């Protein structure tokens, strides 16, 4: 049984001080849906939990013509209920809706999903295709890191001791742009992605794709931004040949493992199928924007 020390600072500075000066292993407590389970299974003698949900802005979200400023600890259930956000970023909201059960969504957050840095984290590809930035505060000040550069390995990320993810910024999409995220699981709910794919596309007046971003997860140690898959879409009308080229690029970029959820060959194939389907959905949505 790990002995927990609990602090709930009311400011970013207070949280950074606690995290930077901790003499025992320290964790940020957001929704706790990963942290509490990981702590129960830990051999640490003691841990410091810094609950950041009392800090102003950590659980709020604002969206305007500049884009979305998301408090990383806002619960997924609050996030997915925000129609003003789902109108602009339907794929990102869908990805948050896929995390765990209703109960888990009552606590889990997009920032927590990001900082837990699982290869199968559903929100990460959706953040990447929308060009999201992590605003990280630390003892030395603030820095901004693109989400595709945030995760560094299975369960690890670029955050240093004393640093805190204080905001996720997602720029407003260009006109005629939309996103979609799809994952494959063998059941209809309550599972972890076998493969996942997020796509954002921008169309011109003729329906030609003028910009795209493609990101895949659960098929490599980290979620990946696949520039070759996006390049296969740009300049096309998302015809079958272009979609297949994007799918092939995503499959080629993947380096999946075989485990009880699926074989490497299966994952490599399915991630391509998901890219095609997500691209079609994103394009349909973009036409409506």
């Amino acid at each position, binding site marked *: *049984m*790990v*002995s*927990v*020390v*609990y602090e*709930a600072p009311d400011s970013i500075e207070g949280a950074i001080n606690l995290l930077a000066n901790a003499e025992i292993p320290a964790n940020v*407590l957001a*929704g*706790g*849906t990963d942290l*509490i*389970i990981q*702590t*129960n299974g830990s051999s640490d003698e003691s841990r410091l*939990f810094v*609950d950041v*949900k009392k800090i102003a802005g950590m659980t709020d979200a604002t969206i305007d013509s500049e884009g979305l400023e998301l408090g990383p600890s806002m*619960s997924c*259930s*609050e996030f997915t209920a925000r129609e003003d956000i789902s109108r602009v970023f339907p794929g990102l909201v869908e990805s948050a809706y896929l995390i*765990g*059960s*209703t*109960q*888990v969504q*009552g*606590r889990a957050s997009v920032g927590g999903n990001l900082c837990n840095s699982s290869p199968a984290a559903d929100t990460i590809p959706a953040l990447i295709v929308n060009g999201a930035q992590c605003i990280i505060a630390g003892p030395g000040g603030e820095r901004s890191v693109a989400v595709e550069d945030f995760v560094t390995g299975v369960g690890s990320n670029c955050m240093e001791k004393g640093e805190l993810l204080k905001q996720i910024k997602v720029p407003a999409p260009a006109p005629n742009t939309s996103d979609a995220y799809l994952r494959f699981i063998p059941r*209809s*709910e*309550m599972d972890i992605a076998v493969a996942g794919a997020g796509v954002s596309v921008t169309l011109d007046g003729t329906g030609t794709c003028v910009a795209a971003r493609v990101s895949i997860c659960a098929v490599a140690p980290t979620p990946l931004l696949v520039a070759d898959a996006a390049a296969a879409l740009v300049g096309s009308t998302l015809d079958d040949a272009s979609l297949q080229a994007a799918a092939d690029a995503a499959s080629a970029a993947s380096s999946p493992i075989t485990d009880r959820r699926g074989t490497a060959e299966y994952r490599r194939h399915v991630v391509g199928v998901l890219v095609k389907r997500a691209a079609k959905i994103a394009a349909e949505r973009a036409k409506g924007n």
Partner: protein
Amino acid sequence: MAKTHVSTSINGEATEFLCEPGDTLLDVLRNDLQMTGTKEGCGSGDCGACSVTFNGALVCSCLVLGVEAQGAEIGTIEGIGDNDKLHVIQEKFLEHAALQCGICTPGLIVSTKALLEKNPDPTETEARYYLAGNLCRCTGYDKIIRAVMDSAEVMRGGA
């Protein structure tokens, strides 16, 4: 280590308790407050037997720390119905025989109440998705869903 003093509200009543900072809300409810209606199934957020509402959100109490309850509003199965009169959802679970061993039942009733407050007229598909985090290993769910849909109809005043 010194225990932490927590002031909270459970089912509308001001409540105070002392807990270790690592104790879950489920530990506190069952072991310190003797509110054993909330059940422990998996202890890892997978089964929903420990479902409670926390500031209006449906959560697994095994994934909330007791200390986080400071200043919060918590709702448990003990706040649904009373000793003299069962809540409609409880009546319907009995009527449809929507339980066998009963371990999942408090969590399912808390979750069903949360569902119907949010969406008084769910489709069966919506109800099944909302309740996907409440596992039952006895009934096979069909009777549970019948009880939920019937509860919804009665609560809308339709029967």
